[in-house]
């Protein structure tokens, strides 16, 4: 097993309107894995399933080689978790929270905790409830990193924070990964942020995984093409057609957004009597939006 997280055919239902269906996810060991999706797409639910906070209806979850939720206590000892909302006791001070957490984790790194307190400029005597949003986020990162886990699960850890705090947190995460070779599973809807740090990306919408790929493949494989003279039906293209629409009323050809694109694939169009006038690079955010659009159009057609 080479995956830090391995999910197979996971099914979960929450109420009448939301379900995670047939979810397959593979987070390679040592990867910084970005989990993208709009609000309400199922990211937090998936994370809670990974942590054993929820029980799936069917399917299999393996975390660090152990089955979840059967081995939740052993697995959680190796996971640093930062939830979407601050979840710690507001009446305890920073120091008390650190001491509390240290008691539960045998691999707790006091030196790292002390170093991060300094680096994040946290006051040990301040009550958690009186910290600013940025300080709370920093403390939760500090607790997650000092546990010395092999896997960090971060649920929108920098959402709503100012750029300075975001940079501090991301920098601490990168330092940790480079020192320990840990795996990071980080969910966010801040595409640019994930683009900077992740080497794998998964996109989720409406409880389903739309795509899962190495960052380079996703970034460099998603293109906007300006295609002239394309037939209405195309057969077995070597790339994925995400969207296809007329450009400027049709006279200037068509705009296609494609995935899994590789240089040299323009020859496919020549074979079907069309031509590619332009190949435009998309950044991750544009690619993400097009993926969502394609997925939602496909779903509404069904």
């Amino acid at each position, binding site marked *: 097993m080479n995956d830090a997280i391995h999910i197979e055919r996971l099914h979960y239902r929450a109420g009448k309107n939301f379900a995670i269906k047939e979810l397959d996810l593979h987070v390679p060991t040592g990867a910084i894995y970005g989990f993208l999706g709009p609000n309400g797409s199922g990211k937090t639910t998936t994370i809670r399933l990974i*942590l054993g906070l929820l029980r799936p209806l069917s399917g299999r979850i393996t975390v660090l080689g152990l089955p979840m939720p059967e081995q939740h206590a052993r697995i*959680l000892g190796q996971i640093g978790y930062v939830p979407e909302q601050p979840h710690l*006791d*507001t009446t305890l001070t920073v120091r*008390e929270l650190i001491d*509390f957490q*240290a*008691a*539960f*984790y045998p691999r707790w790194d006091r030196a790292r905790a002390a170093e991060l307190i300094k680096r994040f400029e946290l006051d040990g005597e301040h009550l958690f409830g009186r910290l600013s949003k940025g300080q709370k986020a920093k403390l939760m990162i500090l607790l997650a990193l000092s546990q010395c886990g092999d896997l960090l699960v971060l649920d929108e850890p920098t959402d709503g924070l100012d750029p300075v705090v975001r940079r501090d947190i991301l920098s601490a995460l990168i330092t940790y990964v480079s020192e320990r070779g840990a795996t990071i599973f980080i969910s966010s809807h801040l595409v640019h942020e994930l683009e900077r740090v992740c080497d794998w990306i998964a996109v989720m919408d409406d409880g389903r995984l739309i795509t899962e790929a190495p960052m380079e493949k996703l970034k460099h494989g998603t293109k906007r093409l300006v295609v002239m003279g394309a037939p209405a039906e195309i057969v077995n293209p070597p790339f994925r057609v995400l969207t296809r629409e007329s450009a400027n009323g049709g006279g200037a050809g068509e705009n296609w957004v494609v995935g899994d694109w590789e240089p040299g694939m323009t020859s496919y169009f020549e074979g079907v009597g069309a031509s590619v006038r332009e190949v435009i690079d998309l950044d991750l955010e544009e690619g993400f939006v097009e993926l969502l659009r394609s997925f939602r159009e496909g779903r509404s057609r069904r």
Partner: protein
Amino acid sequence: MRAMFRAVLHSQWKWSRLIVVLGTVAAFAIPLLSLQGAARADRGALQAPELLRAVQSWGTLYPLLATALGLLMAIAAWAPDHRGRHIHALTLPLARWRYVLLRFGAGFVLLAAPIAGVLIGSSLAVLAATLPPGLQAYPIALAMRFAFAVSVAYAVFFAVSAGTARTAGIILAVIAALILVQVVASMANLNLDLFGAAQTALLLGPGPLAVFAGRWMLVDV
């Protein structure tokens, strides 16, 4: 496990120290007050009924204090976890029953202070008083009964407080249904006394809450 217990105990102490301190002061003061003035050296055997009445009236405060302490300590034990929607507790690397046991045990340890308060207060009150002939003091028995009552109250409220809003709703719905049935039975002139039956089952020996019923006497014949 010891380090975990210390951590849980410290956090629980921080949330409930006011309850513990006030409860301990009250537990210490009640036995002293119950014998104050009623057990002076110049009183004779004729004052024994007066003393017993005073002790008995003060005695009603022990089960009330035990219930209040059990309730407040149980609420305090779970309040921060409820506020954080239990996410922190559920992501700690230990079996959930162990975590519940740690919280439960920490509450028990903290409740030792008011129990000790009753024992010390009772012992001092008895030492300071001159009892009329024929009367005996029972400070240890009173403290043990208080310990048992506070433990029962804490255990019951801890279990209820650990539940979700749904559990609380079910309990309230059952109570409401009982009231409704009783009201309907009274209107229909049926010979049905649900609350009397419940009281008998719960409060009379060997009912689970029997420890709260009856006389709580520091001094008796």
